[in-house]
């Protein structure tokens, strides 16, 4: 494999006695889009600031393209960064903002204007060069910030929650735009967000962070469908989690005892008697008749039906009184009413077992 664009090796950053970043290992391949996802205070922004050089690590190493950089000041790291508040220079025109990095690199004047024009075209802001940042909309400022970061042809792009200040519609547009731009330029990118939707749609890989550590790293589908911990499972999307105990092992599958009823699921490497958590995504839970022979089927009572248009969220009470949620396509074939008793079922391959007890 080629030299990774970025490599973090046991990175640590403490504020007082609190370790904001507590031993992070991460490698980003050239051209790869990696998202650091987590709740506020999980250390994702601190990690980004360590990579950018705004903070000095208390331990570990940072390599950019094979070069150790943890002792280099930010202005020698050759990274392009987009800030949450865009951080445009208010006293400069759009063109001067974009040209700033090139001026600092002492690029010739003629080349600067050519590259600024090219960068503004890249973010579809041709002809905006003479404006001031305060004459632009939020989305346009965002694009200027992106152009300013890309024009220096950085070894890597760092994005610090760049979409969180935009309204919903614009946010979804910029999502696609940043993604396609990143792919077209093939630039390795670290993206920080607390928005799981952004993480799932934009990333090649997602690193879910918690308390200064990476809890799980993997492709979006892996993170969503095979979460390693209860935290990851609960942080991304909705999920039903049922405490379970391994009853018996039958080949590749295990028989589980849960308060809601017996179940079967696939998992390797657990022994009988172990406490685990059985998880099923709401869209994989089915209601009513039609369960195949090998399905897990439990009795449940419909508590409430939430109508969201294309989908119905059916809130259920299980045999032990705990609640669960199923999501059904609103295709007209099913009607649920609160209070009705129904069969809830899922195929063993639609369940996922986490090796953590509740």
């Amino acid at each position, binding site marked *: 494999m080629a030299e990774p664009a970025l490599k973090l090796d046991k990175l640590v950053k403490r504020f007082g006695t609190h370790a904001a970043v507590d031993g992070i290992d991460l490698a980003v391949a050239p051209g790869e889009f990696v998202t650091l996802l987590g709740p506020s205070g999980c250390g994702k922004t601190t990690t980004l600031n360590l990579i950018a050089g705004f903070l000095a690590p208390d331990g570990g190493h940072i390599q950019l393209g094979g070069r150790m950089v943890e002792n280099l000041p*930010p202005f020698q790291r050759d990274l*392009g960064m987009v800030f949450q508040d865009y951080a445009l220079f208010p006293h400069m025109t759009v063109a001067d903002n974009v040209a*700033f990095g090139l001026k600092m690199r002492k690029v010739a004047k003629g080349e600067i204007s050519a590259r600024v024009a090219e960068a503004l075209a890249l973010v579809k802001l041709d002809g905006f060069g003479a404006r001031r940042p305060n004459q632009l909309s939020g989305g346009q400022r965002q694009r200027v910030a992106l152009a300013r970061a890309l024009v*220096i042809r950085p070894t890597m792009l760092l994005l610090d929650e760049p979409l969180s200040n935009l309204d919903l519609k614009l946010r979804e547009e910029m999502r696609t735009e940043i993604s396609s731009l990143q792919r077209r330029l093939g630039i390795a990118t670290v993206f920080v967000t607390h928005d799981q939707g952004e993480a799932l749609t934009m990333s090649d890989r997602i690193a879910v962070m918690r308390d200064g550590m990476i809890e799980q790293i993997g492709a979006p589908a892996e993170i969503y469908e095979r979460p390693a911990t209860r935290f990851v499972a609960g942080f991304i999307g909705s999920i039903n989690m049922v405490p379970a105990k391994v009853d018996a092992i039958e080949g590749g599958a295990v028989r589980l005892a849960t308060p809601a009823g017996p179940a079967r699921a696939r998992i390797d490497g657990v022994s009988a008697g172990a406490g685990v958590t059985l998880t099923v995504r709401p869209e994989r839970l089915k209601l009513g008749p039609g369960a195949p022979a090998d399905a897990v089927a439990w009795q449940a009572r419909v508590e409430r039906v939430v109508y969201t248009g294309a989908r119905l969220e059916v809130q259920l009470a299980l045999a032990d009184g705990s609640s669960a949620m199923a999501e059904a396509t609103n295709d007209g074939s099913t009607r649920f009413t609160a209070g009705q008793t129904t069969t809830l079922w899922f195929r063993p391959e639609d369940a996922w077992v986490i090796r953590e007890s509740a």
Partner: protein
Amino acid sequence: MNKGPWTLLKVTVAVIYLFILGPILITAAVAFNGTNRSFFPPRGFSLRWWGEAFAPQWVQPLMFSLELAALTAVIATAIGVPLAFAFQRYDFPGKTIVRTITLGPLILPTLVTGIALLQFLTVIGLGRWLGYWALLIGHVIICLPFSVRTIAISLQAMPGSVEQAAANLGAGPLSVLRYVTFPIIMPGIFAGMAFAFIHSFTDINMSLFIAKPGQRPVTVAIMSFLDFGFAPTLAALSILSLLIPLVLIAVLGRFVGIGNFLYQEQGRG
């Protein structure tokens, strides 16, 4: 909507304006008296008091005040910029004490500061400094809080990410200061300088104790002349003294955009 409170507010504002503008307008009118007494409404019409206001007796203290205020403003700004950076950006031992002392003159009566400085210079044997140098020191002391505070506010209002962005784009610490930080806080620096200038120009409490005869600011000169009654000359002179800071503010406001700093406590980001 209930109109009562709005009417009350409008009346209050009108009364406040009346008491701010009324005296100024009356003084301006008095300066055009045709007699040598300060009548209002003026009796007759004459420009001779304006001519007298430009006599050497008054021009000299006026120029002295201008010079003192300009020098005070420059020195207060030169000290104020690094102090504001230190207070805003760094933690150092004794920071609270240093800041309290620096900003102290804002809450201490200037009269007390003036007497204290007079005593102090005499005690430490620098009594011969009394006069110009002591006056300059005194004015810098009382004007420094204005420049420090205004510059600190403009630094605070600047998002930290702007400097990080500059560093990220390849600017070393000095380039960040030169191309980003200073241009952004420049209106604050000029506003601080203007505040210091005006505060020095209008001061009488400090000058009263420390100025020497022959080196008197215009405020002290006016005060001394008041012993002989309020002549129309003083009215003309007062209006002149009023116009100087107003013109300064207007010019700075036009070219540097200090308006935000004068009329609100927040700078632009």
